[in-house]
């Protein structure tokens, strides 16, 4: 896959990820931070983000187990350390996508 196409997919993922924050932020603003429904909306959006991350990984030909490790590390980084999930996901994509590293990747998973 060409680098420009990969970068376009990465940009689209980042935009979608950012846009998904908007409904949760609006809901929190109108209903309140502590409401149980706000937390449910937050969990729902987080699940949609995981689905978006799966689609993103597959569109760049990542294996399912690579995506599983990517999500596990991202969730650990986000929930335990407050680090940005998409940036951790991008690290995995960068490591396993040959249009970034310009090499044919043959990794025994």
């Amino acid at each position, binding site marked *: 896959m060409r680098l420009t196409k990969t*970068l376009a997919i*990465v*940009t689209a993922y*980042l*935009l979608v990820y*950012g*846009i998904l*924050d*908007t409904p949760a932020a609006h809901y929190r603003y109108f209903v309140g931070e502590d409401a149980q429904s706000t937390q449910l909306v937050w969990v729902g959006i987080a699940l949609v983000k995981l689905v978006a991350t799966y689609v993103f990984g597959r569109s760049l030909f990542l*294996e399912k*187990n*690579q995506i*599983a*490790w*990517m999500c*596990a*590390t991202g969730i*650990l*980084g986000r929930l335990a*350390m*407050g*680090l*940005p999930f*998409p*940036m*951790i996901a*991008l*690290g*995995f994509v*960068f*490591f*396993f996508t040959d249009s*970034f590293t310009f090499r044919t990747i043959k*990794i*025994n*998973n």
Partner: protein
Amino acid sequence: MEKLLEIFRSKNAMGFSLRFAASLLVFWVAYQGYLHYTHANGELDWVTYQVSALSHGMATFLGVANCQFSCFIDGCYVGREGKMVNVLEGCNGLKLGIVYAAYLIATVGMNKRLVIQLVIGLILIQLFNVVRIGILVALRDLGGDSYFFFIKHIFGVSIYLSIIVLWLINPIIDKMFSHATD
């Protein structure tokens, strides 16, 4: 133990994941220690202060009139009175820097050349962050919805892409360093 080390060094998803998570954890613990130390002394951390001070300079350069700058223990306020932007610890770009550095260490491994590259990379990320906050202060000053659009969509994407560019040029810089030391 030997098997664990073998998995840790391997190039598969699990090995990379473990190296990446371990590097993230080491940097995060160091950063939390630093934050704890500064808060125990009743101070704002140096990085957030410098990012805010430079953003103030950037906003003034971009034409924000009467741009003010004040700091408290939880963050700084930059901008014109009534339209100030709150620069908190989370806005200082260091968490992005942690992921940037952890990825390179997980991929390349720690060496002298990488340390120099990491220092330069972290400075570049901070400079980009300063430009970002400076532009946000200017947009807040102008008014309208552009501020919210930029803060939510444009800057998030652009700062992530800037780190991808830094990762992309890593092999080129590595080659330059090796030529220089040969």
